[in-house]
């Protein structure tokens, strides 16, 4: 009796694998018979939410995905953007939320490994990583588990990325109770390549070999995509630990070198990494795209555990494996490269003209499925949606009785600087190698990361961004603002935003109110992406981010690429010199308490409605920033985000005394500033700490102030004062609000490690 006969397909087995009875009936219809167990396992993975995007596909079609710079849009392992001089950038972001919640170190590590494979599969050498992380609150005795998760995730990212020699140059971390049961780990990576070296994961040429390269296959990660990624968390969390894969960055490093050589020497026809659903998804997707069939002999796959069954082999998510299509005439060359890098290289099947994915086990056919049905024709589900009950249409009514103003603005500023969402993330990024590959121009801790493109004068900049709290209060406005803020952060470095990769983290899409927030967020993002001319080139949807029925904040994370013609003209947030004029670009009289860090930290509430971004104003603001930076007029630029104008100004002071940028000596002493916020209808504390989009603090030399005003003629522009001394002094409408030594601000800003001890 063959191994496959030990398990039988049935409706019950299908449900156990995560399929619905309807889906099982549909499978029987496609197969024109009862499926084999191997077939059922394959369908269950390929039709899982994680692999099929069955709830999101109809909504995602709203995104703009093409443009003159876009060489490859969604549908491949990564999107590819032309960045000039014959160079292109491949980029993508992917979630590894559930594996990280179950096992933070390995979950995060394999998240990095997976996204990096997506990049080099396209022929690009991975050149940066960024990570967008969300945990529950980390302060206090009750939150030891959140500190454990944060510590493990940061450690795992460093363990994998550092070993690969890929600089982790940026990222973001937020702490909110909503993520306590379901942390978010979104790993983004990008790589550089020559624009004419793109390789697509398309199988072709009947008679060509199907070759598996890299690690042996084990039982790790079986059902990762269906069991882990496509279900909510409940009390069975601990039981899911075996579904988490274990990372081997050493093998991945060898894979990078070997695969890039194979691709650049044209020794392989095409290549695809084995990610979610392992051999099943890689083979069916390659076959479907190429309109060919693949015959796979599962018994030829090198194994870690000898007694594995064919269905396990087909859906194992063992890491560090690549599938490639090889012309028999090139096989000896492919073997030579793999042997040089001490990597397994095994012919496991061949390309056919059958358009069927056929699996063999010791020459017995155990699965025979139309490849197209698996990869591209999974069911589409559109949940009837409705607006969640908690949403309100109006901002909060701020009265002195409902929100009494902070008695001591200086104390409130220190409190905000020390809050984990604003405080320096040095503790985390010091565990990442951010300088390897010798391209890093701007180290972490600034608005965006900047790298040079070797051999050219050009720069590329990366950022990821999302304020989940704002998306919770208004998913449309919040998501739109996330795109605007990412673009603004790039423009603050002098880079022109050119493309987006996104990671859309939401709760259970089968719930109508969750689905509504998803629809709204995609609409907001799409409108902003159209306005900034930043097509969405790649991305990932992560649903079922719930624990015990509680969904996370809608968190549509935006990863963005920017380009600059002359990298020496990049800009950062540091105040540069005594006497420089400090200017606020953008509306001086707009700051909202709703959804702000001040509302959460000082008043312990999250409520109201967040402002809508004025995209026309935003586009003009960013044009002024880039032009002012390129001409040298603007000497520093920093976005006003969490904590409002006061925190942004404090950060400019603090940054002036820290390292980064080209260094030949120790950092200079930090610079203070004496600044006045103009009279407005805003209460003083809200003028200082309230939040709103489209506001950037810049500095220029005094002599350049008229030229800056001329450049920004179509923008609201407010001169706040000048840089100088070693204290930050702020007044509102002539009345002194706060005065603090920059050293004290800095100490509060660097206080995160104490909380993690």
């Amino acid at each position, binding site marked *: 009796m063959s191994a496959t006969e030990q398990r039988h397909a049935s409706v019950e087995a299908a449900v156990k694998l995560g399929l619905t009875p309807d889906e099982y009936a549909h499978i029987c219809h496609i197969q024109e018979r009862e499926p084999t167990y191997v077939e059922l396992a394959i369908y269950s993975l390929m039709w899982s939410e994680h692999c099929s995007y069955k709830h999101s596909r109809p909504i995602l079609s709203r995104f703009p995905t093409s443009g003159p710079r876009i060489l490859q849009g969604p549908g491949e392992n990564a999107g590819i953007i032309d960045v000039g001089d014959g160079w292109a950038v491949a980029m993508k972001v992917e979630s590894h939320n559930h594996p990280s919640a179950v096992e933070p170190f390995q979950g995060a590590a394999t998240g990095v490994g997976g996204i990096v494979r997506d990049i080099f599969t396209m022929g690009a050498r991975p050149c940066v990583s960024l990570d967008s992380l969300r945990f529950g609150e980390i302060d206090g005795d009750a939150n030891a588990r959140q500190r454990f998760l944060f510590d493990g995730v940061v450690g795992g990212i460093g*363990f994998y990325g550092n070993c690969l020699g890929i600089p982790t140059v940026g990222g973001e971390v937020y702490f909110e109770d909503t993520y306590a049961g379901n942390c978010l780990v979104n790993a983004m990576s990008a790589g550089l390549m020559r624009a004419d070296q793109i390789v697509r994961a398309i199988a072709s040429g009947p008679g060509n070999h199907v070759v598996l390269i890299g690690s042996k296959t084990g039982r790790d990660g079986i059902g990762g995509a269906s069991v882990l990624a496509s279900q909510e968390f409940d009390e069975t969390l601990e039981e899911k630990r075996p579904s988490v894969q274990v990372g081997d*960055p050493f093998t991945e490093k060898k894979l990078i070198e070997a695969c890039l050589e194979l691709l650049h020497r044209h020794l392989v026809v095409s290549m695809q990494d084995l990610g979610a659903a392992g051999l099943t998804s890689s083979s069916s997707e390659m076959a479907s795209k190429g309109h060919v069939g693949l015959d796979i002999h599962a018994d030829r796959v090198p194994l870690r555990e000898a007694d594995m069954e064919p269905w396990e082999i087909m859906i194992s998510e063992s890491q560090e494996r690549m599938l490639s299509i090889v012309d028999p005439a090139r096989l000896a060359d492919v073997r030579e490269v793999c042997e040089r890098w001490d990597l397994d290289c095994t012919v496991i099947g061949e390309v056919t003209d059958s358009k069927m994915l056929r699996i063999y086990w010791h020459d017995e056919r155990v699965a025979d499925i139309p490849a197209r049905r698996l990869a591209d024709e999974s069911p589409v589900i559109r949940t009837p949606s409705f607006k969640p009950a908690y949403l309100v249409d109006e901002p909060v009514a701020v009265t002195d009785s409902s929100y009494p103003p902070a008695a001591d603005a200086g104390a409130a500023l220190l409190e905000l600087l020390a809050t984990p969402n604003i405080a320096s993330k040095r503790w985390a990024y010091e565990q990442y190698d951010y300088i*390897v590959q010798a391209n890093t121009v701007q180290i972490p801790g600034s608005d965006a990361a900047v790298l040079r493109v070797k051999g050219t004068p050009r720069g590329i900049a990366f950022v990821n961004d999302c304020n989940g709290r704002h998306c919770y209060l208004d998913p449309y406005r919040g998501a739109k603002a996330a795109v605007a803020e990412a673009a603004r952060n790039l423009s603050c470095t002098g880079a022109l935003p050119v493309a987006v990769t996104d990671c859309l983290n939401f709760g259970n899409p089968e719930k109508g109110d969750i689905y509504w927030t998803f629809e709204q967020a995609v609409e907001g993002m799409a409108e902003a992406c159209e306005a900034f001319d930043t097509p969405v080139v790649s991305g990932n949807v992560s649903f079922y981010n719930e624990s015990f029925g509680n969904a996370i904040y809608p968190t549509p994370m935006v990863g963005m690429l920017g380009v600059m013609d002359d990298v020496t003209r990049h800009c950062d947030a540091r105040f540069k010199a005594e006497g420089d004029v400090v200017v606020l670009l953008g509306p001086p009289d707009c700051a909202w308490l709703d959804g702000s860090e001040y509302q959460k930290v000082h008043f312990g509430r999250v409520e109201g409605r967040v402002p809508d971004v004025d995209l026309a104003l935003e586009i003009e603001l960013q044009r002024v920033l880039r032009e002012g930076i390129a001409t040298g007029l603007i000497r520093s630029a920093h976005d006003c985000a969490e904590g409002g104008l006061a925190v942004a100004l404090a950060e400019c002071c603090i940054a002036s005394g820290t390292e980064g940028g080209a260094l030949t000596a120790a950092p200079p002493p930090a610079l203070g500033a004496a600044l006045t916020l103009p009279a407005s209808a805003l209460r003083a504390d809200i003028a200082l700490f309230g939040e709103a989009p489209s506001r950037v603090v810049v500095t220029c030399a005094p002599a350049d102030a008229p030229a800056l005003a001329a450049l920004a003629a179509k923008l609201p522009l407010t001169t706040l004062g000048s840089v100088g001394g070693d204290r930050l002094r702020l007044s509102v409408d002539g009345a002194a609000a706060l005065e603090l030594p920059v050293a004290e601000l800095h100490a509060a800003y660097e206080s995160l490690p104490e909380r993690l001890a």
Partner: protein
Amino acid sequence: MTAAGPHPVRIGICVFPGINTDHDTWHAVTTFAGAEPVWLWHKDTELHDVDAVIIPGGFSYGDYLRCGAIARFSPIMASIADFAAGGGFVMGICNGFQILTEAHLLPGALIRNIGLKFVCRYVNLRVENAGTPFTQTAEPGDVLRIVVKHNEGNYRVDPVTLARMRDNGQIVLRYCAADGSEAGATTNGTIGGSSPNGSLDDIAGVCNEDFNVFGLMPHPENSVEAGLAGGTDGRVFFSSIVDSVRDRVLLR
């Protein structure tokens, strides 16, 4: 060897699997007029007539057993040991330093950082001995600002050897404060001060007794170009090697 014509100084860059600053080191060497990088492969024994060898940083064999413990048994290491025994210049950076200690071409060992975490950080380094072939273009007491990035940079050596190393001037670099003070302050492996890893005597770089083998934990190959975050303070090590090779040719 023929007369001291301006033939390029050939600097071998040894690649082990898992090394990840090989390309950075190659690129750094190309920024020096008169220097020429040459790949050396761990499975070979051939040194291709190089004038000096650099073992770059990274994670040879994943650092899975103990940093450098597997790489030291590679075929190329026997050739490098012979090369060093004949007076050839060998510099190990980070993992390269760890490999050289495992191979006993340098004294001591590098253990886990006292903070038990990977540390990527700018450090200040005081040049304690500017008379070595690897530091001759620096001045004694110069403070260099270079990035470290490692998990195992905590230098340890027995007291007798340490005393001899001090007497000989084999301690070439120490972590220090920005003004050059405090070097050697963290003698008992405490965290804090200027050391990122709890290194004994704040040691960041050492030579062998013959001063032709040198290892350091910081990454000078990422500090050779103005305009990048790494700055240019790493140039002295490369320029010193180039000059030392040229000096030696002239002496012949």
